[in-house]
């Protein structure tokens, strides 16, 4: 089981409380599709992804960004049990969506960059970054857990 210090818990919940998931979801997913273009392979039904502008203006990308953040919310609400909470999601990403689990880390890094841009040097200091990245790495690990 993951051990969270009080400081980490506070930092993670605090950061989450200040995030607007309707804002960061679309931002992070767009950035992921732009910075790591091979991730576009999973979104062939999303329409025009031909340029950064197209990606950032794509309504399906935005909607899916919000969906992803909704998934993250479940982890926030179940921080002591993320592995179990994500079991079905992990199976789905493996069996139905066939997503290479390496991609989870790429999206996590983009979420981190977007949070850094939003909160700046004091809102996203080294301690907060540590807690946040620890949280995301637990999420990433849980999502990849049911692959076989």
């Amino acid at each position, binding site marked *: 089981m993951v051990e969270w210090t009080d400081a980490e818990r506070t930092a993670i919940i605090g950061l989450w409380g200040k995030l607007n998931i309707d804002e960061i979801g679309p931002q992070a997913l*767009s*950035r992921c599709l*732009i*910075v790591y*273009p091979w991730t576009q392979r999973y979104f062939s039904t999303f329409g025009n992804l031909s340029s*950064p502008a197209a*990606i*950032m203006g794509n309504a399906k990308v935005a909607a899916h960004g919000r969906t992803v953040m909704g998934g993250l919310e479940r982890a926030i609400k179940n921080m002591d049990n993320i592995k179990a909470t994500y079991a079905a999601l992990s199976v789905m990403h493996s069996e139905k969506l066939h997503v290479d689990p390496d991609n989870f880390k790429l999206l996590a*890094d983009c979420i*981190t*960059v*977007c949070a*850094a*841009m*939003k909160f*700046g*040097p004091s809102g*996203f200091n*080294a*301690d907060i*970054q*540590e807690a946040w*990245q620890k949280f995301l790495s637990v999420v990433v690990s849980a999502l990849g857990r049911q692959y076989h």
Partner: protein
Amino acid sequence: MSLTAKDKAAVTALWAKVSGKADEIGHDALNRMLAVYPQTKTYFSHWKDLSPGSAPVKKHGKTVMGGVAEAVSKIDDLTSGLLNLSELHAFQLRVDPANFKILSHNILVVLAILFPTEFTPEAHVAMDKFLSALSLALAEKYR
């Protein structure tokens, strides 16, 4: 994933905007690396003080960004341009190359924090590619 002309132009343009704060960027990136990836501290056991703001961390941030600046100036041929630095890292420092990725990530995070307007997705992808290419050039002489 080699650097296109567009990538090089984007990196050069971004560097022009951020190089004034190079020391600060290096310092903050190192602080974050040591805090978020504690295994990286193993390379600095010879420093008395690893806390944020300490003199050795500050000085080393400056050194690292000096290397980045050199890489920007030699962006058209990183492998030959960074040969000396590669030999240093391969034979003397022997830093596991996996750590180049870790430091690169933290440099990107600090750029995002200090330059939220300039660090557009386009600038981000170019910089990420550049730091990857830099890391590869740095690992050239390892084996």
